[in-house]
């Protein structure tokens, strides 16, 4: 935690009120997001219990698995949820612009879940569904594997920083607001909302006390409150089982209705709270560079959509050596770019970076606007130098490439020298880009003495790392002799007998 964000948390604690950490919302917020509140059964990994799903606050659909240990019911649930989600996703596969390679959908779906646990629950559901066969023994409806593959795609994509197709609401809230509670407590949607926007009749303290009482604010999932499980859920499931064994249609319908009502009571408060959080987030202006990142989402969505249309295979259980290395490179790159984008757009985030010495803001004290150099190709190019005086604790070294939010886009500079004297630092920069094509820099592209200016490191362009071909894993990363499979990875470790013997 940086000094400034720590300060914001302390401030929030002292004033008992959430403090904004950023000037903007750095995540795209769709005009028509799909909210899913998943609940899972305790004690069995990835056994869904219920989900509430819908793209408007007023028309949420509640889906319940009456006996979560029954796999037929489980996949019937997956099929129902899958149909709703796939209808939603398909509604974005309509409007396409551009030709050939550049052709892509203009919008992308956005699924919002209450908390990071919700993403994990969808990942488990995707893993459960995507390999299922639609024919032969234990066949599932066609939509199930399709849904599983799309869920897996969304979960994988959500690992990349700055993306917006699948997001936990708590993460969007904590990116913008600092509260007086710990990071762990911030993952509780109810107490987070208590800090940011307590119900009108309550103080933050009262709202927080309510948020921690599972009878007033049931947990936002995926796990339910243990007390609810023992007191209400287990007996209700038992009654359902009994009714089913007896084959009494009347009792069965009654037991099912009772379960739905119980679960609705647990899930609806969270449902309402997610929509309340969404409208709060809508009131925060969106950062300028978010639109550009959203184009990346649209591209990924289009690519995967085309891959599915061409009958692509489900995602692997585990990454291959080359796939993992490629993914790591992509994730690191995206994180660096997202952090840079946020600081570029947002004064608050920039201040945070400045306090850590990773950016600076100062006044131009000296300028050599007319300086030129001759390149290797014997061309005279403008390379003006300016000296910036700052009181920030700069920790950037010479040769660092910089960009500036205070000058026209395309402006690039390199640090020539950094001279620190007590609390004042003088940084000499050479401007290397964004001055137009002429021999004389365009008006307004070179900072003038007295001008206030901020700089931060350029995440820059780097060529994508080149790895060996996917089918030729080299000897360092694969065991020799084994045809195709890597004996160090037990491929059948997750193999399971599958049936309904319970």
């Amino acid at each position: 935690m940086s000094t400034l964000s720590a300060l914001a948390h302390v401030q929030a604690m002292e004033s008992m009120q959430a403090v904004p950490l950023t000037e903007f919302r750095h995540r795209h917020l769709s005009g028509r997001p799909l909210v899913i509140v998943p609940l899972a059964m305790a004690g069995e990994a990835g056994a869904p219990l219920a989900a509430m799903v819908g793209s408007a606050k007023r028309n949420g659909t509640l889906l319940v698995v009456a006996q979560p240990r029954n796999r037929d019911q489980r996949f019937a649930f997956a099929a129902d949820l899958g149909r709703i989600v796939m209808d939603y996703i398909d509604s974005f596969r309509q409007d396409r612009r551009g030709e050939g390679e550049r052709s892509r959908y203009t919008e992308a779906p956005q699924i919002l879940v209450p908390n990071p646990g919700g993403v994990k629950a969808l990942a488990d559901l995707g893993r459960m569904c995507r390999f299922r066969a639609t024919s032969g023994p234990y066949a599932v409806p066609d939509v199930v594997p399709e849904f599983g593959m799309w869920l897996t795609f969304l979960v994988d994509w959500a690992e990349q920083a700055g993306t917006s197709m699948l997001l936990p609401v708590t993460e969007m809230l904590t990116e913008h607001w600092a509260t007086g509670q710990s990071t762990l407590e911030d993952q509780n949607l109810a107490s987070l909302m208590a800090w940011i926007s307590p119900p009108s009749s309550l103080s933050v303290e009262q709202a927080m006390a309510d948020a921690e009482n599972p009878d007033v604010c049931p947990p936002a999932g995926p796990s339910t409150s243990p007390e609810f499980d023992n007191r209400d859920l287990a007996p209700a499931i038992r009654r359902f089982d009994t009714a089913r064994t007896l084959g009494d249609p009347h009792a069965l319908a009654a037991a099912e209705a009772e379960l739905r009502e119980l679960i609705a009571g647990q899930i609806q408060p969270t449902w309402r709270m997610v929509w309340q959080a969404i409208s709060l987030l809508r009131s925060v202006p969106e950062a300028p560079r978010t639109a550009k990142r959203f184009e990346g989402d649209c591209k990924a969505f289009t690519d995967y959509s085309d891959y599915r249309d061409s009958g692509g295979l489900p995602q692997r259980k585990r990454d291959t050596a080359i796939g993992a290395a490629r993914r790591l490179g992509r994730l690191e790159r995206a994180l660096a770019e997202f952090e840079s984008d946020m600081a570029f757009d947002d004064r608050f985030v920039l201040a945070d970076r400045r306090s850590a010495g990773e950016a600076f803001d100062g006044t131009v004290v000296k300028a050599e606007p007319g300086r030129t150099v001759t390149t290797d190709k014997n061309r005279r190019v403008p390379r003006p130098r300016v000296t910036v005086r700052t009181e920030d604790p700069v920790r950037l070294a010479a040769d660092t490439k910089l960009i500036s939010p205070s000058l026209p886009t395309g402006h690039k500079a390199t640090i020539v020298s950094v001279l620190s004297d007590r609390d004042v630092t003088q940084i000499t920069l050479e401007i290397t880009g964004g001055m137009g094509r002429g021999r004389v820099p365009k008006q307004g592209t070179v900072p003038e003495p007295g001008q206030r200016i901020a700089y931060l490191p350029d995440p820059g362009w780097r060529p994508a790392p080149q790895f060996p071909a996917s089918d030729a894993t080299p000897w360092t990363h694969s065991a020799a002799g084994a045809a195709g499979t890597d004996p160090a990875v037990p491929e059948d470790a997750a193999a399971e007998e599958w049936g309904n013997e319970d």
Partner: protein
Amino acid sequence: MRTDTSTTPEPAVPCPAAAAVAATQAILADMADGRHRAVVVDSPPGAGKSTLVVRAAQELTEGGERPIIVAQTNNQVDDLVVRLAREHPGIAVGRLSATGYNPPPALGALTNTTVGRTLADLAGCRIIVATAAKWATVRDATFGWAILDEAYQMRSDMLLQIVERFERGLFVGDPGQLDPFTIVGTERWIGLPHDPTQNGVSVMLEHNRNIPVHRLPVSWRLPSSAAPTIAQAFYPFTHFTAGTGDDTRALEFSTAGLARTDLDETLVQAFTTGWALHELPRRHVPRTDTQTLQTAADLAGRLLVRGAVATCERHPDGRPLKAGDIAIGVAHRDQADLVRAALARTGIPNAPGVAVDTANRLQGREFEVVIVVHPLSGRRDATAFHLEAGRLCVLASRHRQACIVVAREGIADLLDSHPSTDPVHLSVPAKFPDGWEANQVMLAKLAQHRVAA
């Protein structure tokens, strides 16, 4: 770091020099033996890793090979090029570099060295040296042998980018130092043998059984006072000894002490025993605690003011210590900044010449006296970052003469109330040394050299 089950046992030889020669011979013999695609050499701190790299490169060249050398940073590449070219004037050495690289003066003065942007520029060179990042941009060339220096600091995904450039590899590195890391927080690869965030050597060994793993048995850097403790704490399965005897190295003051007796007491302890723990009163403080950092700076300043003469095998008649012979090691970059400011505040003219840096940046460097700000000093909790064995290992193994640790009282209690709580994952071998245990060993040793401030 990895568990040590595959290390080839080396015969016990009483004389350090003879043991080192025998180890080198065994490594070269395994390289000459055509059966192994790779040879791994684990090297404790200061065990002559660079010497081995230069020697192996020269042997390969003599055998008609055209080896490449992969290092991790530009400084490491420059140092290796200078050493190779000076020790073997008859071999043409190529330095592959990115555009915009300015060779340091020492490199520019060499006649048998060529700097080039592409392999084509270095067609006449017998040995080509570059960083891993630069090698990753080279296409369509394959060499018989690669020597990978500091291989434990190279991530597995980087190894994957350069592995097609060579047929066989000599992996040299120190398994006890800081592991490579990623800023991306994902758990998806935990337990996979090809986890891209692991170091390249572990991944290569995981997929290739029967690769000979050697170790260098002698630390030429660490004094005889330090080697046993460092070996016990950080290399519990691979013993090594100091290359010098008890009376080869010594530190003496050139002036008598006056005033500042607290600092002097610590310095005397360090000068006579090779270790000192300068313990400040117990307090929970932020890592930027002025008192701790100022004390570290004052100790360095005091050492410079009083003047010290160091005797060692290189300077048997003694040599006065200069600011550049002293380093102050910390855990965080903001601490380093504050220590530099504190050094400036001491008003001693040559104090700013003292090297101040974080463990990550001190890796691979060597000093006469090192002052360490203990990573756990004054903390309320022991996080994985502050407990990491590699971090303490780097800090406590940079010195040739003495190591002074500055800490607040209470680290032992902190360790006792924070046992390791890292989650255990399937298929992930237990990590040795364990940070918690390594810290306990170091503390037990330092307790014998404690000076209360």
